[in-house]
């Protein structure tokens, strides 16, 4: 039998049973449409999340003192050393040495007790420079950040996190008030907007003062030049690794270290957010894929079910075809190809519906749906595959029918 005739024969059988063919396809249509939608939703969510992360500063490098690994491969002295200095931060801020850095801010922290009237609140105070809001992507809710003059003079000014301000002042106006730390008075010049939390540290319960102020008045670590962390914001996220290399070679040079293996500092990318978001996204993907797979399984069982009915209904036709010389393989192939054509048509219609919904839904739900050409092609291929897999059993049943029994069937 010629392949073209096989195809034509299958196609005619589908066309002459339009209602049944449509019902068979329905399961596949629904399954594929939901696959297209869920994959689109998954990709859309991924896109949304990575955009949000980019906004949160995935262009941020974190320089910490100490090497992340010692010779035995263990983390040694990480974050606790005194090898990073304010001079390092000033050098990194130079546009000549690290051209791909947009801004640099060193941080040094101390735990302090803030007092305002009867209120008393313990929090972490960070000493830094005026570039800090830009580097850490923070904004001010009220007032202003401190100025370069404040840093130069070591002024007694303080910027409070939103939560800290609320704990101390309640709902009263904050900017211009004075708070007391160890009997010294600090003027509140600004309050930070809320930023949520990173890991288990709150970004809203904190206070910020000029680095000089912290070192001269609040820090009791004893090493006035050392800093805890230097943050470097790259000019763009794709320049992150360039900025990292520039910073590394500058610091190695400044510290008089010949090889990167001996570095007394560590440069990390701020990836904790990315990690968290990726794990959420992966869970979402597994869930959506599971739902889509279930929908396709149901569609496939529908195909098998109706193909079996079709074989029973067409027993006499099968008997006749065999009497006229159809080999078992001819009959099997005809039913298999019917199932695959149904899969193909169902898949194509499902893709069309899925794309239609994907275009319509974002305006309703406000969620992003990304349509990937590859996903569409894969969907159709999967639909054909489902037709084939779930068509195998009915086709084998048809091929096995004995011609005399089949012809005698009423």
């Amino acid at each position, binding site marked *: *039998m010629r392949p073209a005739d096989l195809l034509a024969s299958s196609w005619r059988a589908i066309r002459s049973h339009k209602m049944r063919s449509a019902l068979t396809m329905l399961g596949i249509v629904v399954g594929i449409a939901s696959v297209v939608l869920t994959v689109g939703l998954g990709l859309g969510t991924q896109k949304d999340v990575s955009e949000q992360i980019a906004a949160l500063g995935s262009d941020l490098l974190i320089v910490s003192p100490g090497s992340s690994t010692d010779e035995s491969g263990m983390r040694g002295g990480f974050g606790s050393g005194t090898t990073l200095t304010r001079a390092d931060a000033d050098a990194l801020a130079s546009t000549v040495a690290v051209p791909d850095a947009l801004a640099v801010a060193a941080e040094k922290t101390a735990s302090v007790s803030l007092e305002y009237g009867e209120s008393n609140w313990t929090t972490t105070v960070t000493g830094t420079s005026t570039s800090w809001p830009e580097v850490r992507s923070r904004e001010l809710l009220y007032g202003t950040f401190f100025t370069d003059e404040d840093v130069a003079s070591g002024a007694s000014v303080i910027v409070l996190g939103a939560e800290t301000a609320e704990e101390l002042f309640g709902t009263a106006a904050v900017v211009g008030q004075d708070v007391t730390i160890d009997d010294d008075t600090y003027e509140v010049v600004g309050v930070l907007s809320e930023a949520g939390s990173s890991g288990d540290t709150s970004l809203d319960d904190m206070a910020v003062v000029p680095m000089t102020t912290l070192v001269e008045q609040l820090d009791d670590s004893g090493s006035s030049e050392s800093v805890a962390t230097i943050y470097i914001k790259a000019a763009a996220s794709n320049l992150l690794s360039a900025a990292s290399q520039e910073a590394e070679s500058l610091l190695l040079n400044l510290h008089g270290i010949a090889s990167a293996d001996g570095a007394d500092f560590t440069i990390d990318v701020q990836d904790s957010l990315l990690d968290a978001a990726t794990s959420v996204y992966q869970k979402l993907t597994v869930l959506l894929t599971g739902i889509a797979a279930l929908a396709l399984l149901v569609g496939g069982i529908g195909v098998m079910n109706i193909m079996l009915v079709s074989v029973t209904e067409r027993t006499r036709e099968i008997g006749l075809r065999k009497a006229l010389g159809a*080999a078992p393989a001819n009959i099997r192939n005809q039913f298999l190809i019917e199932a695959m054509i149904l899969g193909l048509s169902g898949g194509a219609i499902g893709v069309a519906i899925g794309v239609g919904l994907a275009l319509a839904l974002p305006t309703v739900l406000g969620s992003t749906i990304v349509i990937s050409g590859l996903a569409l092609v894969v969907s159709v291929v999967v639909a054909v595959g489902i037709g084939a897999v779930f068509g195998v059993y009915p086709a084998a049943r048809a091929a096995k029918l004995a011609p005399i029994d089949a012809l005698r069937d009423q």
Partner: protein
Amino acid sequence: MTATAITPFETVAPVIELSGARKTYHTGDIEFEALRGIDCRIYPGEYVAIVGPSGSGKSTLMNILGCLDVLTSGSYVLAGEDVSHMDEVALASARNRRIGFVFQQFHLLSSLTALGNVELPLIYAGVAPAERRKRAMVALERVGLGDKSRNHPGQLSGGQQQRVAIARALVTEPAIVLADEPTGNLDSHSTRDVLGMLDDLHAEGSTIVLITHESDVAARAGTVYNVTDGQFVGMGTEIAK
């Protein structure tokens, strides 16, 4: 002791040669011997009728002759080819090349036109479309339905449908045309029509085996075999014309 017909064709090789043909059906534990040792030769150009009471084994014999079923024992040589032990694929090919079936229930596919139905055996023979259509058209014209080639079975009378079935049986130029009660579902006018058609085919040289209840139908054949309890009774009777 053979029941071989004495025919004027003995110098030529037979189209059908059955020897010691036995067919046993098993239904649960019960065995039933539907054919009990049939020997028979049918020669090219013969018109043979097989008659016998209901349940005597006529259809069983027809299924064996048509390669739709295989013997339990004995041998069957069809057009020089021993088909007794063929597998399903080889039997399908033998049916396609050697046998033209005409059934009591016509067995036309309603989704195909008359022409499409006649083309079917050629499709399984792998004949190219243009050639197929030409040969199917010739066969339809031979049964007088050249003008109905585009009609679907539902748009044809019973007699016309059976003529389409005859065209389908002829189109492969088979070694033998097997007709099981071909007039069983037809009125007297259509019966005459279809039998006349078979007479014409015989006159043109086709080998025909006809299974029937009716003696006036059998009377048209050159030789009549009488089956009773799965055996031929007496010799083939030659009918004088």
